[in-house]
């Protein structure tokens, strides 16, 4: 057990208070009864089999933050980092701020935030490895780095930036509520360290002594409905109508014209000009740009190959080109292998890749990986059966055909289903720029476009070299290509419209899209729009031969490049609903600057140099 000192000051102990039975979301605060199977168990902290004597062990606990008092002295963050032995680049708790007013009527509102040990822990549900557990003890949501494989998906879904992906250790770690201290009745290290009467801790829905409010939000705090966080606030002092952030995220918070009502998140339209910023397109998610595009292309290509003959494209039947057909299948298989390898290497701990399937019940990541894996295996089986029927001569012919059909049709179903789960990954309320149906239209659009183009261009090459015409094939394949392009374009149109309308982080991302990446964005849109007439034109003209092939190759390159830039933008632009940062700490702009200038190479700057 954690050792309580003889001279431990009174403020460090969790006070004994009367708590209501249910929290504001109607959930019981007493998480399990004393006779429940989950009760009376040791937390097994560092091998200690003891059971804490805290009388409220099974009640949901949470932080209490009095924004009226916080002075941004960093004591809470530091006490946390000291206790958890964290390197400077990591922090389970961070203090950021918003500010407003005009000198000397200036107001700064500091916000200290860690994990809120939510009632509906989106991290837990999202984690493919089941590294998270919501404990009956204190309602603590704890994450086990020994299970984690470092995909970072929890860091995407958490609205509060609580889970910390450590790029050095290749794993996520987060606030553990100091359950070791709770077991002996002490508040967590951060709350005990507070020097301003701001951060406190106790049974949820109870206010500390001398505090009046039990609000569930303050300016800058994400929508509590996303995860039902266990944190309560006080903020009674008058604030200016508009509050801004010190970090580079182009957001501000604004009340209605009378300065009343809740603060709404709005875009801070600074006079930024339209830039290319191609370098900034690169990110940690680069492997995902490649992985998603290739997977979509491969699935689309297989659909075109497999379904083509059914639509009368006999040229695509295996028998029509007994060499080209399996070669293309193997190429697709190779491409997908490469993509899977990339996405695995993108993990912090690639050797734990097999844990991706651990959470099929809740995690879209698990489902996506399962879907892709099933498709990949079916594609592999189909390819082998199709390429080397001789190997299976011992099988009855009907069974062989049946198996081919089974694997083929299986892949036809599994592929798009995998892409659906791939899309579900990005429907994250904490990432409004992604949380839109456009992701689905883009993924399926890309599947159609890239897949059909891959098949078309490959066969055009084969047919051209044999001196045969491929114009009719291209004419047929131009339909899905065009449809895919249209699907993506329409999705993007509505996405841009909805982001601009919805305000908040989504609009801020879109603002960045129009400014920081303004020229890149325009080029992508132009590329997309130019692709349509080009494809229709070439197909309509029925170009053929090497000249035609060259034209098709140019158009295909344009379309692929456009898709790649679009996907890179998709990852680079997202602005999570996280809490405001400070001017240096938790400021993405400063982190980028530190990496560019080499300041990040000094470990005491607290920014990890880029590895990609």
């Amino acid at each position: 057990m954690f050792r309580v000192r003889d001279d431990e000051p009174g403020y460090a102990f969790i006070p004994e208070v009367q708590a209501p039975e249910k929290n504001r979301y109607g959930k019981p605060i007493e998480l399990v009864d004393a006779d429940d199977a989950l009760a009376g168990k040791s937390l097994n902290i560092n091998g200690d089999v003891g059971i804490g004597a805290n009388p409220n062990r099974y009640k949901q606990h949470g932080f209490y933050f009095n924004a009226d008092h916080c002075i941004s002295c960093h004591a809470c963050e530091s006490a946390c980092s000291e206790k958890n032995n964290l390197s400077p680049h990591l922090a389970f708790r961070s203090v950021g701020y918003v500010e407003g007013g005009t000198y000397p009527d200036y107001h700064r509102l500091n916000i200290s935030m860690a994990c809120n040990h939510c009632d509906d822990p989106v991290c837990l549900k999202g984690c493919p490895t089941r590294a998270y557990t919501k404990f009956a003890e204190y309602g603590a949501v704890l994450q086990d780095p020994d299970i984690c494989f470092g995909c970072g998906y929890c860091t995407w879904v958490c609205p509060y930036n609580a889970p910390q992906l450590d790029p050095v250790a290749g794993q996520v770690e987060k606030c553990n509520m100091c359950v070791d201290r709770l077991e002996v009745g002490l508040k967590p290290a951060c709350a005990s360290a507070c020097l301003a009467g701001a951060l406190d801790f106790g049974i949820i829905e109870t206010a500390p002594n001398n505090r009046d409010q039990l609000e569930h939000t303050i300016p800058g705090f994400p929508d509590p409905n996303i995860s039902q966080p266990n944190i309560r606030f006080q903020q009674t002092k008058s604030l200016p109508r508009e509050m801004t952030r010190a970090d580079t995220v182009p957001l501000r918070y604004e009340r209605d014209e009378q300065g009343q009502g809740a603060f709404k998140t709005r875009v801070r339209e600074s006079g930024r000009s339209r830039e290319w910023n191609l370098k900034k397109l690169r990110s940690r998610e680069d492997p995902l740009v490649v992985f998603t595009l290739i997977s979509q292309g491969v699935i689309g290509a297989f659909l075109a190959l497999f379904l083509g003959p059914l639509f009368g494209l006999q040229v695509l039947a295996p028998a029509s080109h007994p060499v080209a057909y399996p070669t293309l299948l193997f190429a697709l298989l190779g491409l997908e292998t490469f993509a899977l390898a990339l996405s695995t290497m993108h993990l912090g701990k690639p050797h734990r890749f097999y844990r991706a399937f651990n959470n099929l019940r809740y995690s879209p990541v698990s489902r996506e990986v399962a879907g892709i894996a099933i498709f990949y295996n079916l594609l592999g089986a189909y390819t082998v059966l199709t390429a080397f029927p001789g190997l299976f001569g011992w099988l009855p012919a009907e069974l062989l055909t049946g198996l081919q059909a089974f694997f083929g049709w299986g892949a036809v179903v599994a592929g798009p289903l995998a892409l659906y789960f791939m899309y579900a990954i990005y429907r994250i309320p904490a990432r409004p720029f992604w949380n839109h149906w456009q992701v689905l239209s883009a993924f399926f659009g890309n599947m159609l476009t890239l897949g059909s183009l891959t098949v078309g261009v490959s066969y055009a090459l084969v047919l051209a070299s044999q001196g045969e015409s491929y114009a009719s094939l291209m004419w047929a394949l131009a339909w899905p290509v065009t449809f895919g392009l249209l699907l993506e374009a329409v999705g993007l149109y509505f996405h841009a419209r909805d982001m601009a309308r919805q305000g908040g982080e989504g609009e801020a991302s879109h603002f960045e899209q129009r400014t920081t990446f303004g020229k890149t964005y325009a080029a992508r849109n132009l590329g997309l729009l130019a692709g349509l007439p080009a494809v229709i034109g070439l197909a309509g003209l029925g170009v053929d031969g090497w000249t035609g092939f060259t034209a098709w190759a140019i158009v295909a390159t344009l379309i692929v490049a456009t898709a790649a830039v679009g996907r890179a933008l998709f990852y680079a632009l997202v602005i999570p609903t996280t809490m405001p940062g400070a001017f240096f700490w938790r400021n993405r702009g400063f982190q980028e600057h530190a990496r560019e200038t080499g300041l990040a190479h000094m470990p005491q700057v607290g920014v990890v140099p880029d590895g990609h």
Partner: protein
Amino acid sequence: MLFGRKKKNPIKIADKGVVDWKYTTCGYCSTGCSIEVGLDAGGQAVASRGVGGADVNRGKLCLKGIFEHELFTSSNRGSVPLMREKRYDPFREVSWDQALDKVGSEIQRIQGSYGRDAFAVVSTGQIMTEEFYTLGKLARGVIGTNNYDGNTTLCMSSAVSGYKRSFGSDGPPGCYDDFEHTECLLAIGSNLPEQHPVIFWRLREVLEKRKFPIIVVDPRVTMFAQMADMHLPITPGTDLVLLNSLAHVILDEGLEDHGYIEANTNGYEDFAKLVAQYDPTTASKICGIDEDTIRNVARTYARAGAAMTIWTMGINQSTHGSDGVVGINNLNLITGNIGKPGGSSLSITGQSNAMGTREWSSCSGLPGYRALESEADREDIASFWGIDPEFFPKKRGLFQTDIFPAIETGQIKGLWIIATNPMTSMTNTARIRKTLENLEFLVVQDAYQDVETNEYSHVYLPAGLWAEKEGCFTNTERRVNLTRNVVPPYGDSKPDLWIFSEMAKRFEQGRKMRFPETAEGVFEELRQLSKGRMLDYSGMSYDKIEQQRGIQWPCTEGAQTGTPRLYVDGKFQHADGKAKLIPLPFVDNNERPDEEYPFWLNSGRVVEHFHTRTRTGKIGNLNKFSPTPYMEMNPDAARALGVVHGSYARLTSRRGDAVVMVQLTQRVPPNMVFIPFHFHECVNRLTLGLLDPHSRQPAFKHCAVKIEPVADQQAASVRNKAARTY
């Protein structure tokens, strides 16, 4: 609503394996927090925690204290003495004997050629009291230079001077417990939440129980100002006008404490005549605080049953810093707010042992608040040390800020710098560089060999830091607290005490004198020398100090414990036992913004850094909160100049230029910028630092600059990074 694994894995929480906790006192600021340093089984210091039963901090620490154990292994500590012929030669490693012999012979050579005072010693507020005393013994009793001072001239000199002028002696009369009793707190130029967060917490704890007015005077909207009931955004450099005007209103409206003034003060008539000129209407035009507010504050303060004033560098670092302190004392004397619970003039001190150096280092006189000017004091100390009293000068020599100009003009040829970093801390860096180049011999004694001043040294002596040694600090409320030795000094570095004692052996006179080997042995001398004096230590011992988590002097022999307040009986240290009310005419000699240099340049501290960052710049968990210098600038002013948030801008003053990152905020007025003072090659490239006539403290916070956006941001970032080697 519970999710996750049914069969739960064991929970792992970082366990540093602490097997032993050792008692220390924080070595950063002067709050004086008690810290326990945790040692693991291998004897490594791995954790820090506030001592629960310590009255000062009651278990709390600020972030610097929380990571203090990391100092022992921080980068670029000095491990062996270094030497070179010329400052541009490479250093070579030498033995301690070689280094000390060299320093000893150079001191004697310089003193032999140019006179005793041609060698100067500049020390610090960072080392232990026992070390200060020993250094004083060495400098005054052995080396015999009168040009011996500490860097406290840059921070507390004005408070010392002001206390002496008003009360006849240095020594803050109040304590933190005054928060419990006061009915009005006036904070002038003090940003407690940032500079002294644990003292702020003590105040907050009281405010949780009892509400009383907090009035903050600061040109910047600090967190303290924002939290105050009244914030007075004063025009820089005009505090004295405000103080005189507050006194004006109090006297004019008959709110003064007649009885107290009559019984305990001198000089009332002249004082009243002077403040009569500072009516609020006139004063408001100068200090920028409207007349109604001045009257309101004066009435609130005077009518409070007990009222106290705290201040820090906003008062001290000014051309009238000493006058500002006297002005505060005047205010508290006329309202009878000295020596009573909740009534005080409490200077909030900067360095961990600024008080220790004031008491015992002999910088400004002789140990134990003795004066060189007093024959009896000279004889006292001379006989105690066993030397000829005539060896002492009869008048105090130069202050730190006058020592450097004397190097510039050649009167001083050799300098010993101990645990301070004038290359970063002094105003007008360009001038300091030129000055240091002039030295025939410079020895730098510091825990870090990358301390910037080392660039100009001929000998570098690596010293142990903080709990690598043992000894006492005195905090802001006169509390003497102990640091036990936790780990041995880094590498072959040595405790400062050892260095001083060994240095004494290089001199004939030093070999004849007694230099106790242990800090506790030195402490015994302090007890003897303080017996019966205002700062009586005679009732203290190391064990008793540790047991009581610090003892406030005076603590007379046989007393159970110390004394929370001075002057409770109304008896002051001036010869007649009375305090002085001193008239303070205001002369505005600051470099004010003008057409060419239109901005006030203000400087100050941030909570994550300490002084010139030699320590905090290496602790990642501190440094990350401000890893490079920045400037707070008003967005309206910036817009007019095309200066952008997050970009680099160039500031120019009549001294030089600096490049900083811009943080736009309405926290500062449109005609002022604020830059933290911690960074090398930054704010002090710009500062003027006119000296206070009494305390010789520089006016760090008052000068004028112009600002321009930097077109080549790339080059600016390279320049910025080059200056941030830690």
